[in-house]
Each structure stands twice: as C-alpha cells, then as structure tokens.
C-alpha cells in the first residue's frame, strides 16, 4: 500500500484524514462519478471520508450575482471540511471556486483565516493523484477512443496543465485523441447557458463539431457540469458519443464496455 505524501511528509495510511467533496451536482445528478472516485482512491490506498454536512460550494449563487447567499454556502463548506488533511474535489470549477473566490467573499470573524488554512488542502482530483499521491498510472483499463476537453476552470482557473492527460496516457487500452481548439469554452458557464441560451448553444455547436471531428467514442473532462452541457447536445443530435467524467475512466478496470462508466448524453441513453 502507498504511504501518503502530503506537504512533503510521508504518512502511513490511516493517520491522515482525506475528505471527499463530492459537490452538489455530482451528489444529486451523477452519483456514479462519486462512486468511481471512491473506488479509484481505495485502489490507491486512500480511504476517503464523506463529511455528511457538505452541500454546495456556492459557485452558482456567487457567479449569478447572489454573493451573500453564496458566501453563506462558502461558510458552510469551509466548516464542513475543517480538520481534514486533504479535501479531494472531482470538479475543476468547484475547486477553482474555493481557491480563487473564497478569499474574496465576506464572512464572519475567523472566516478569512479558515479559508487561508483550508484552501491549500483542497485538491481537484487530478491534482490529488499527480501531486499528492505522486501517481500517473492508476491501474486503469479502458479500451476506447477517448478525447479530453480541459474545461475553462480546470485550464485557466486551476492551471491543471497536462495532469489529466498524463493520467489518461497511462490507461491501458485507451487511445487518446487530441481535441481541436480544446482551450475554447463549451458555452456552459452556469446560468450563462440559461440567460444567454442562444450564444451558449452556438458555442456548444462548435465544441460538438470539434468532438465529432476526433472520431472519439467518449468525451471526458474533469467537470460534470460542462459534460452535461456538451453531452446534452451530443445526445440531442444522436451522435452516439458518450460523455464520462475522468474519474469514471480512471476507475474502470474491467474490459467490459461501460462497466464503471455511466453512459449519458441522452434521455434513455443511460445503460
């Protein structure tokens, strides 16, 4: 089993406390992603906790202009994860929210200090795997043609760089194909997709075209919200391309199509 290295200290399994911040979107809509994260981390020797008090990071409220409501959710989130050595988040945008926006939010006395104390321990999933655990080969098997969309908050907010690609390249059987113009936004943007639905759809149409150009069977990303948006369009257009959270691919070990992954991208498209 792995000894866990956090902040340069190698600590034997059991003595560090790692929490899973599943995020409200995954919790409510994509439990399969959460189960995949648990499976994956256990396989790597990390037994995560699920602090039941957690709910939502507050991003939707803050980014839509409801700063005070969002800040209350931020206070709640910081409290829910206090005392953990590491917090793993399978969402680039929620991790970016905590790291970039929490320090700017108003709060009760002690909030700023708690944020400063907690945020360095918050890791997006691929950061946790590559930087904290120091692994790129997670022992996954996924014999499919896959393309990866970096998502804006993973790319420009968290600067995940090539961490996800390094992990994907080590997946046995997986053929990784580059996504043209990958750095371009898919047009989701939270409530942007509702408030400016036409522009959002036009952006997504270009993203979908790029995905189809790759000939990939599966589009993956480190964020289910963007995948819901792109996958919803892929599904509506009956393209047959599945979307999967990166964690679901990394958790897969059986050479059976869709074993660990949850097929999405359409009503009735789920297996």
């Amino acid at each position, binding site marked *: 089993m792995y000894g866990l290295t956090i902040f340069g200290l190698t600590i034997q399994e059991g003595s560090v406390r790692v929490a899973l911040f599943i995020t409200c979107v995954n919790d409510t809509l994509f439990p399969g992603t959460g189960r995949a994260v648990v499976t994956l981390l256990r396989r790597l020797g990390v037994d995560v906790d699920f602090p039941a008090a957690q709910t939502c990071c507050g991003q939707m409220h803050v980014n839509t202009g409801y700063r005070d409501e969002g800040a209350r959710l931020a206070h709640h989130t910081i409290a829910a994860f206090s005392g953990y050595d590491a917090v793993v988040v399978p969402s680039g945008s929620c991790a970016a929210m905590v790291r970039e926006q929490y320090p700017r939010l108003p709060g009760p006395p002690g909030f700023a200090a708690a944020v400063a104390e907690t945020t360095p321990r918050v890791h997006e999933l691929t950061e946790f795997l590559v930087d904290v655990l120091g692994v790129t080969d997670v022992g996954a098997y996924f014999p499919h043609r896959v393309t990866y969309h970096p998502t804006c908050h993973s790319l420009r907010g968290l600067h995940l760089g090539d961490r996800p690609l390094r992990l994907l390249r080590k997946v046995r059987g997986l053929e990784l194909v580059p996504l043209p113009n990958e750095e371009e*936004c898919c047009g989701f*943007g939270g409530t942007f*997709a509702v408030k400016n639905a036409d522009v*959002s759809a036009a952006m997504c149409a270009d993203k979908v075209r790029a995905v189809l150009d790759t000939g990939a069977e599966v589009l993956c990303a480190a964020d289910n919200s963007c995948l819901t948006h792109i996958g919803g369009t892929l599904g509506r257009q009956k393209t047959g391309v599945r979307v999967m959270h990166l964690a679901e691919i990394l958790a897969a070990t059986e050479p059976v199509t869709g074993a660990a992954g949850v097929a999405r991208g359409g009503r009735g498209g789920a297996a």
Partner: protein
Amino acid sequence: MTRTFLGLPGPRPGAAGEGFPARAARAVRDSQLRFNLRKATRTIRARRAGVVSELPDWAELRRAGKAIKDHTLRNLDAYLLQLEEAVTRAGGHVHWAADAAEANRIVAGLVRATGETEVVKVKSMVTQETGLNEALLAEGITAYETDLAELIVQLGDDRPSHILVPAIHRNRAEIREVFAGRMAGWGRPAPEDLTDDPPALAEAARVHLRERFLATKVAISGANFAVAETGTMVVLESEGNGRMCLTLPETLITVVGIEKLVPTWRDLEVFLQLLPRSSTGERMNPYTSMWTGATEGQEFHLVLLDNGRTGVLADETGRQALRCIRCSACLNVCPVYERVGGHAYGSVYPGPIGAILTPQLHGMESELERSLPYASSLCGACYEVCPVAIDIPAVLVHLRAKTRHPVAERAGMAAAGWVLERSGRLARMQRLGGRLRRLAPERLPGPMGGWSDTRDVPELPAESFRAWWERTDGGRR
C-alpha cells in the same frame, strides 16, 4: 449623479431598453456576420499568440504594465497636474472636461474659434465615447474619419463593432460596395472599376483621403498614452493616416481620458512592447507619433476627460478596468464576442472590456447595462491575454452582485440557497426528486427552457451519492 454619456447609439441597432441576450440572439443568427467574425478573430488571435510566445519575459512585462498603471491611478491627482504643467510649458493649452457634454462643448468652441467648418480625425475611442462627431455636426462642423476602418464605418453610416478593427463585421465585398456607392457623396469618388482586391480598396481610400489631409486645417485625435513628466502625447497606428492628421493641420485638438497617463518615458517603454503584440500581433508598432506641446505656427489643445472615471476609481474591485490600454486582445479571444460581434454590446466599448467598463462608467439603469455583466461564460480567456492583467471575470462577478435581479430568479435562488444550506434539506430534496424523476418534463419550464431547446436534460438518478454512501457505508457493505 448625472448619467455619463457613453456614445450609446439611439434606436439603431437596438435600443438600450433591449438587453444583451436579445441583441446577441439576433446577431448569432446572422451567418455572414458570424463567418466574418470567426475568420477575423481567429487570424488575429493566432498572430498575437505567436508574437507573445516568442518573448521570454512576457509575464514580467505584463506584471510591470499592471504595476505602472496601478501606481499611476493611485497618484492620478498629482500626475494630472504634472502633465498639465508640462503641456503648458511646452506651449500647449490644457482644458478639463467633467463629462462628455463638456468635452464636446470645449472642442466645438475651439474649432469655431479657428473659423473652420471641417476637421479630420485620427481614430480615437474616447471621441466616440463622447459622441463628438454628432455633437460637432449639430454645431455645423463636419468631422471626417481618416482611419481606413473608421472611414468604412462612416461612409457606410454604420457603427464600429471592434475597438481596433471597427469594420471587423464587414468583408471586402461589402467594403467595395460602401466605397463605390458612398465615397462620391463625401469627397473624391471611388474609381469606376473598383474591385474588392484589398490593395485596390486601400488605394481608393488613400486617394480619397489625401485630398482631405491637404485641405483641412484642424485635426482631432485621442492619445494612447500621455507622459506626465514631459507632457508628451503618444499615438500608435498602423496606416500613417494618423500621422498626416497630427502633422499637417494648423490646429490639433487631443481628447484624452484621465486614465491614459503614464508617469515617465521609462514606463512608456513597457507599453510600447505590450500594446502592439497584444493588439495587432506585431512586434513593433508601424507608426508611433509623439509630440510635446506645439510647434511654431501651430496650436495644440489638450482636453482631459473624466466622464465617470473618478467614480470607477472609487470602486476597489472595479477600478482595475481603468488599467485598460484598449488593445482589444480580450475581444479577439472572447468566445461570446466571436459569435455575436460588437453591436450586441450596445456601446462603443464592446467585448469583455465593454461588459465591465460600460456598466461602470454609465451605471446600470437600463436593461442593456444590467445584462452586460452577464454577457460572459466566465471562461477566463480575456484575463489570460490581457496585457495589464485585468481580472475581467472577477469584475464581472463583482458587478453581477450589484445589479438588480429579476423577481422570479431571486425567488429561485433564495429557495436553492435555503435547500443547500443544510445537508438534511438537500437529502430530502434528492429523495423527492428520485421518486418523481419519471415525471420530469423533457422541456424545462420558464426561463430554463433555453437549456432544453438544444440539449437533453440529464436524468435524475434513483439514488443520490449521499444516499448511496449512507446505505452502503461508502461501498463497504
């Protein structure tokens, strides 16, 4: 507080009462416009990326640009006085304008004093901001734009749609039509056999403008930078037409926003590297004109314009917008701008910078102004390319928190906040959703319908993650 005039167009191409979403939806359906924009923004984007990546110290230059601007803005009162003194010492005249109307009044008065009724103009954003051309026309003075793209816009009775390339929404066939049909009404006509070959179009413009330069005695310009220590004005352009205006006429009137100052020539060095690479994707700017005060036999007037800027300066988060050097890199990289163009933003400042500048300078009274901070998916591409590191997404979010929200949305957000504040409430909602999931409609109700028109709605799972965790002890049972 008086409302700042920001060159907002009248009923055309869409009233300020119409929000960005409706204007953008219309623009998105214009396939010719989308084709023109896509081609133009992608070309210039790639060129910028190329010349920026070849500078190993770009990150430091960017940090320096930000720091110099921040320092200047913090000490603006002192630098403005220093500039006034230096300009006056060099033989120029300095005028102070609190708002657009005052600036226009000053300029019109100065032109009238020369006895002239025609002026040539160097491409300038700030005189568009004040609506100077229209104000001069009302005083019987005709202003002729001399920048090629501004000429296309003026002849076509059109509106600029980009900071740097005002006619970016036009392709060359459309430009040929404008020249062939309209030049004669403004001066020397276009040649009979004009084609849409770019050199032929440029030549037609050159011949048309040349007559104007030689005949006109008054010129009006903006400035990219004003150096406080010497009182020097700096204009960057790529055609040389600006330089004709800046040197030939007897009277030169320059209108400058108060945020355009840099303290010293040493500071200027940083921006002369940042600006061309960010804007046109060139290593060096082709025509950089600098002048200090007035030369013998000529007259120079400087109009320093506030027009809402000191108000912006008072906002701790919002004030970074005043660092902007109008390079337009944020427009060229913006996925929203690329698909809707500049007119949808309803202001002379389009794109991401417009979305944070217009509501700040102008207030958020109208539907349009309130909708501008939402004209972004917060993808962060603008922040990444901005040569003075304006965190545009952060300012957008900041402005969103200051807007008045629709009643239905407020209720929805309050309800969502109430549910999400306690994990027990969230769990109950998830259980309810799981039971009712078969009843979920394929088309979402109300404003959410925009989502389901082009995308499938994700199916609710029978069991949430937290319910699974509880039931199986995290998969251990």
